[in-house]
């Protein structure tokens, strides 16, 4: 019973407090000292904890990455040397990063800072930039091969894509000066309307999921199966 009830109760309290603090935080209360109001004070404390928890979640992620990749290496699964390189890179970067962070407070060990910076500047940044740059080539190739007027929906999508690309092209705009306005209209009206629909739909989905968690219908985050 305690295994289920207490976590559910804690979830309910932790979920309700920010909602209550938001409801009772009228304009008159907004500028007041948060410690002067019980709900605000507890809610703020929870938010501080959440910042710490979010950082701790990173650690969980690192542990998980280690577990998965170590298993891959020990099983000699396909592509295991990449997993080894990955873990080595993670360990070395993490080591210098932590050393740099801990020594920076006392302004010592400049070499830790230099080593970490070198890893980031000479290794990580170029690699990330390269991965992203490759997209230009893939997008060009994929657009050429896959962007076909196969049906009405594809034709509308293609027309919109061409309108946006042509509307920002300096050469085309010089020849057709009305095009940027048409492009902007497409972005501001049909695009914004569709995006709003998506955003509102996603927000409603998130709100209903939050409500399910708050009232204890959704329990999978506790590791419980349906009906448990």
């Amino acid at each position: 019973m305690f295994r289920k009830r207490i976590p559910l109760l804690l979830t309910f309290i932790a979920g309700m407090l920010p909602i209550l603090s938001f409801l009772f935080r009228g304009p008159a209360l907004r500028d007041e000292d948060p410690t002067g109001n019980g709900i605000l004070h507890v809610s703020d404390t929870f938010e501080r904890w959440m910042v710490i928890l979010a950082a701790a979640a990173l650690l969980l992620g690192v542990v998980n990455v280690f577990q998965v990749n170590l298993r891959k290496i020990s099983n000699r699964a396909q592509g295991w040397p990449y997993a080894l390189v990955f873990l080595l890179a993670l360990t070395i970067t993490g080591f210098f990063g932590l050393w740099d962070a801990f020594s920076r407070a006392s302004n010592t060990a400049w070499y830790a800072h230099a080593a970490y910076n070198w890893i980031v500047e000479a290794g990580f940044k170029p690699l990330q930039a390269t991965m992203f740059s490759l997209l230009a080539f893939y997008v060009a190739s994929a657009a050429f091969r896959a962007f076909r007027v196969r049906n009405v929906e594809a034709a509308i999508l293609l027309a919109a894509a061409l309108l946006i690309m042509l509307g920002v092209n300096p050469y085309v705009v010089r020849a057709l000066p009305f095009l940027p306005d048409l492009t902007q209209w497409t972005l501001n009206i049909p695009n914004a309307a569709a995006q709003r629909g998506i955003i509102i739909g996603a927000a409603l989905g998130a709100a209903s999921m939050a409500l399910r968690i708050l009232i204890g219908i959704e329990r999978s985050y506790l590791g419980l199966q349906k009906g448990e």
Partner: protein
Amino acid sequence: MTALFQRLMNIDRRWLYLLVGLAAVIPILLPLNLPVNVAQSVQDLYDRVESLPAGSVVLASFDYGPSTGPENDPMADAFLRHCLARDLKVLCIALYPLGGVTEGAEELQRAVGPLDPANGVLESTAFPGKFYGRDFVYLGYKDGGQATMRQMGENVHAVFPREYYQAPVTDYELSNQVRGYGDVSFVMSFATGIIGEWWANLVNAQYGTPVAVGCTAVSAPKYFAYYKAGQMFALLPGLKGAAEYEYLVKQKYGQIAEATAADVYNAGKGWDVQSIVYTIITLFIVIGNVGFLLERRQRRS
């Protein structure tokens, strides 16, 4: 004719890669200085910065990493220079891990010149008379996303007790002065992914703080919904937005551009490249579709 299009449709993708590669490299080596057409969403940011009284504080958040640096770096650079040229004070933070690790401090140093606050080198070389701690300061990265934003609304000093170079935030005039969103004129987020949305639907909606976002081109369509709803008063969409903003700043503060390193103000160069690549992609899409339609007609007949 059909045969020609069919041959083009079956072209080896390596030729396409070569063409895109050349289109990317040549304009970098030989800048074309293509014209830019300033969009209203970009003009809104420029006008807001121009209209603020000297001494106003703006909060700049480096919410991106190296992968989107080519789009976000130039807009951050032009924005920082614009603010300092207008005698505004800039409080910088980062809510994206890689923004804190690589972009924030680096971009600030790129805009104002080399600094070493830990050893007392505080004066900007690009803006003589402007000092770290008084005119601009970098608080660094804090994890937690939305929780951090909410917490900053209550007490910035609790979230960032020390600035990036480890001095207590109360040691510097600017960081000591800013306690909450009420102390800044607006928030400018240079964002990758969803962080720009959080600024709008959390900080703007709950605290009423004006928010502007410089986002990647791929996220721009989504952000236009927030811009049109007034939850963002301005929007810099991708490299195009960066080039337009840079153009506006250069028009009025050209002397700043001359006083800086050659790698600064590169949105224009980037925009040259992107325009040419866009043209190539558009042409190939048109060729592909003409070939596809001809082939379909031939098959039907």
